[in-house]
């Protein structure tokens, strides 16, 4: 996916773009939320496209809420299973997080109510975007996109959060030996991400009592309060539940976090 995103971003300077999705056999919420972030991002390049030929992928795209943000030539039915929200990173929005979760739980046929770990995950993601995504020199805030998709057949809710900012490794500040090792390439970002999640990397603010958000989401995953946690940040893909942290080539500019409940 990172190669596709890199190509797509390059092509955003050449207009218009026709996005041919006919051959897509599998599409996941993290891919959908990233796609909508790219298509409807700050660059106003016109993007047209078609539907996947495989019915499951096409249906998922329609049900995800994708077309609440992207116009179609022919009308598509309104989605009652998925919802995508787009915001600028200037604000953390607790009510938006709550609304998304309740929508997802209802769409999955689960008891409507709170899901604390899920809520925490969304607030932490929004907060990270607010605090870090633009970097210190950025003039304008980044956008974030949050998506929820309820699956009544499995009774699961999938959540995906994406921002197109500078990513975790664009804002991270390593100190001591970690900084040296990273500078000489002796330690990969994939290892550093694991250290971040384990709470072994100090917050970029320099305050030791900060930077606890991602470690808590990680613990929520370890303790099964959320499931199937994936993080994509810069050149790292992490399947947290399986403990797989791999290097992406090419890398991704921004951060994607997704999980299930």
């Amino acid at each position, binding site marked *: 996916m990172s190669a596709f995103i890199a190509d797509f971003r390059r092509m955003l300077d050449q207009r218009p773009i026709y996005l041919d999705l006919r051959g897509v056999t599998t599409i996941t919420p993290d891919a959908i939320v990233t796609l909508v972030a790219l298509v409807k991002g700050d660059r106003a390049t016109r993007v047209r496209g078609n539907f996947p030929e495989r019915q499951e992928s096409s249906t998922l795209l329609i049900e995800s809420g994708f077309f609440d943000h992207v116009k179609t030539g022919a009308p598509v039915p309104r989605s009652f299973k998925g919802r995508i929200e787009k915001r600028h990173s200037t604000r*953390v929005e*607790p009510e938006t997080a709550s609304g998304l979760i309740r929508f997802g739980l209802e769409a999955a046929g689960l008891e409507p109510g*709170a899901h*604390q770990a899920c*809520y925490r995950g969304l607030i932490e993601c*929004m*907060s990270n975007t*607010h605090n870090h995504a633009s970097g210190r020199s950025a003039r304008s805030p980044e956008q974030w996109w949050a998506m929820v998709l309820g699956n009544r057949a499995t009774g699961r809710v999938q959540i995906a959060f994406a921002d197109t900012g500078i990513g975790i490794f664009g804002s991270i500040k390593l100190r001591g030996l970690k900084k040296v090792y990273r500078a000489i390439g002796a330690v990969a970002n994939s290892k550093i991400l694991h250290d971040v999640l384990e709470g072994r990397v100090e917050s970029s603010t320099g*305050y030791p009592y900060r930077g*606890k958000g991602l470690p808590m989401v990680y613990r929520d995953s370890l303790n099964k309060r959320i499931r199937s946690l994936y993080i994509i940040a810069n050149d790292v893909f992490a399947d947290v539940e399986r403990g797989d942290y791999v290097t992406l080539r090419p890398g991704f500019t921004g951060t994607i976090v997704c999980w299930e409940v």
Partner: protein
Amino acid sequence: MLTPDVLSVAREFSKTPGPRAEAEGPHSGEKFLRTRLLKRFLDAQRQGRKLLVDLDGTEGYATSFLEAAFGGLARNFPAATVLDTLEFKSSDEPYLVSEIKQYIADARKAA
């Protein structure tokens, strides 16, 4: 023994607690500390009572909210005093109590 005063986050502050700082968004931990927790903490101390913070009934808590509120309190008062005055109720998410106590201890260490 005096019965503890009870401060319910959901009933007296918000069902949707937000981020750390007021500048980040609504219902922040800083605001909870400034507008609710600090006054009730001081009242409890004056009266020689405990303050029971009821965490139940909300949508959930970001770590930064909890740290800003309770760690923030412990940056203004000794951690031992904070821990001695506050009690917590968290039937929805029992593990939050140990998290908060850790934030109080870490805040003191960091300050």
